[in-house]
């Protein structure tokens, strides 16, 4: 067998999956440009918060801290972003407030799990419960935004049919999230920060003996990760919906963890995984347009969760997480 055919053979399931998805998309879109574009654009929209959440989780876990508080970070950031934007009537200030909130939440996760050496799962749960409680308690109806973050068409690129419309006609945070994929990849694998982060997440005492402060790296990473989660929160309230709703994250922070694992703790992989999960959400809407399964909508609503279970139980099998995740580190 030649190298090419053997490569094709090795990747046969991936190729099969991609072909099946393309075929299915065209079919559900009735082979029309406008509808296919709509499905793909919706996929990207749905995937953005998952991608950002997964990148947040990744920075934490690569440095050895499990973050199950992404959900809470996103929710709290969505809330403060919305409130600040509504009070000041400035979307930019709103986004910045969301990011700052995420960073603060990241710092408190670090405080609980690094400084106090608490259980990381419990620390993350604390963030989730606190965020849900605080945002539900303080949220009041009646605030309005000056609008959503504006749509930006990128020159002629946005005129390309289907893919151009999908990728180059978006809002700012979506572009930013797409930029973050290569940025985080480069940072993790090509910079001293990335090398140290990976070392701290795999073997903290080894990092410590060569003079790297495990605590500092974990604080830094969790705060940076918090900024990304904050961006995800701002995306939800200021870019996707244009208002705040109770529990508007609705489990996205947890799905983001699945996305991170499916993407094998790699930004590029996580992007692919986020798109897959986004797609399962996007076709639901299309099912409704086409009038499929209208008698039993709950089965359509199950699709993302079924995919999550199949992916995590079956496909991911051999993924290897950073060795030191979940363990508090102390020098003596």
């Amino acid at each position: 067998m030649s190298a090419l055919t053997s490569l094709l053979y090795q990747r046969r399931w991936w190729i099969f999956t991609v072909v099946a998805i393309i075929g299915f998309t065209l079919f559900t879109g009735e082979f029309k440009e406008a509808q296919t574009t709509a499905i793909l654009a919706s996929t990207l929209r749905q995937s953005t918060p998952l991608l950002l959440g997964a990148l947040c989780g990744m920075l934490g876990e690569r440095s050895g801290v499990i973050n199950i508080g992404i959900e809470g970070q996103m929710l709290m950031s969505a809330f403060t972003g919305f409130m600040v934007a509504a009070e000041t009537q400035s979307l930019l200030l709103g986004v910045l407030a969301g990011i700052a909130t995420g960073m603060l939440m990241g710092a408190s996760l670090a405080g609980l799990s690094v400084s106090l050496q608490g259980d990381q799962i419990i620390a993350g749960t604390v963030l989730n419960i606190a965020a849900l409680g605080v945002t539900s308690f303080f949220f009041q109806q009646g605030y309005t935004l000056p609008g959503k973050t504006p749509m930006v068409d990128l020159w002629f690129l946005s005129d390309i049919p289907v893919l151009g419309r999908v990728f180059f006609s978006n809002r700012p945070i979506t572009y930013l999230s797409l930029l973050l994929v290569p940025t985080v990849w480069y940072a993790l694998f090509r910079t001293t920060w990335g090398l140290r982060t990976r070392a701290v997440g795999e073997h903290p005492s080894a990092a410590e003996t060569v003079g790297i402060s495990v605590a500092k790296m974990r604080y830094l990473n969790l705060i940076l990760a918090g900024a990304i989660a904050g961006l995800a929160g701002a995306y939800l309230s200021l870019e996707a919906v244009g208002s705040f709703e109770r529990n508007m994250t609705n489990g996205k922070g947890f799905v983001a963890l699945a996305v991170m694992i499916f993407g094998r703790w790699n930004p590029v992989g996580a992007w692919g995984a986020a798109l897959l999960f986004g797609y399962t959400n996007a076709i639901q809407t299309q099912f409704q347009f086409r009038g499929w399964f209208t008698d039993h909508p709950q089965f359509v609503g199950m699709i993302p969760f079924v995919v999550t279970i199949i992916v995590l139980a079956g496909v991911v099998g051999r993924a290897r997480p950073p060795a030191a995740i979940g363990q508090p580190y102390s020098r003596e």
Partner: protein
Amino acid sequence: MNENQTTPAIEAIGVTKRFGPIVANENIDFRVEKGQVHALLGENGAGKSTLVNVLFGLYHADEGEIRIAGEKVEMNSPHDAIDRHIGMVHQHFQLVPVLSVTENIVLGHEPTKKRGILDLEKAYDEVEALGKRYGLEVDPRAIVEDLPIGTQQRVEILRSLYRKADVLILDEPTAVLTPQETDHLLEVLRDLAAEGVAIIFITHKLREVMAVADHVTVMRRGKVVGAIDPSETDQAGLAEMMVGRSVILRIAKGEAKAGAPVLTIDSLKALDDRAQTAVDGLSLAVHAGEIFGIAGVEGNGQRELVEAITGLRQTISGSIMLEDTELTGCSPREISEQGVAHVPEDREKHGLVGPHSVADNLVLNRYFKAPFARRAIRQTGAIKDEAQKLVDEYDVRTASINSPLRTLSGGNKQKVIAAREFSQNAKFLVAAQPTRGIDVGSIEFVHQQLVDQRDDGIAVLLVSAELDEIMSLSDRIGVIYQGRLVAIGNAEDFTRNQIGQLMASGSANA
């Protein structure tokens, strides 16, 4: 070695370090000259590791001072030590398994293009050049977890040299090496000393001290009990200083009275965790009343063999017979009930439950049977009586039988396992690395127990990476190489060198 007027490369003056009520180092004076190989000798728990961790900035001394090249220094982290050109090769390698050799070596001192962008190409070249210069060649791009232990150690040494270490601390560096690798390491250390590096060499192996050290400092119970040139003493003298009483270095044992075969293994095949063949058609027979020693470099299938015998690993083919009973396919408990005692290689993981009490650990292989349990209700009285009896009999040093097991020292943990396994009237005993990481006094005890078990007519299979242990205890020896026994014979028919050769290459004439 030099006249005392020279400035020592590193010096500890009156260092005291406490952990709560325990004094790990008490008023230690310790000095190492430039270009000297200085052995730091002592039992486990004597405070050697604490002392070097203070020198390396991992611990902060409660009292006393550290001087480097005559200058008083304050060290709060390994970073400070590395900045002052102190390097350390840790007992448990401090390497990140999934990173490359080069990434591990430069970690923390990475060459960069600008603003934090790694320059890996430059790093590869530097590592390669460094390896050539010191005779420590490694593939700079290899992933560390794929490398054999001896090579990983080279990476550790190279890492210190990369940081231009003037003082190199090695914590029990030969524990994991074959005799040939050990000889090579000792040569490298001599070469480094000749280049002016001060070397602190922690060990409890007297032979190596005699072979390589210019000077020895002996520690016992947190204090320095002597400093001496090896030429002024011998192994027995050093052992006595170390333990505080005279020690039997070589167990006296009578002729083995070997009986019928108890454990017979035929063409056994088993896979390792990565699904590669680890035990590859191995056959052997262990007779009643003999110690059969398996010598070999770690990773040649010993672990998988032991796990297959004890039911912890599925076999692919072949048979394991205990007298007339087939053991393959049986659960670990069924095998234990058949009369197989097991001293596991990793006692923390497979032998003991750290948070549970000493008493519970002592009945871990029979807690479910009368008199320790009746109709699923634990009989605490019977458990305590048995535990107290075993603690006394086997001299386990513990505050009480109710203390959590993890508070015990390595040697005492091993005694707990020995007490439990040796007291169950087994027909067959498999002991894997039974003296790893325990002190000389406990080693002596465990060795004596193994010989006593043999003399009681039990078939003993001893698996050890310590060639000295295999040679002094075994009646017959098998050398394992790539999952097969490449040589089996009576212990007195082998020389140390022959076995070393077989371990390294699988054949006697390499």
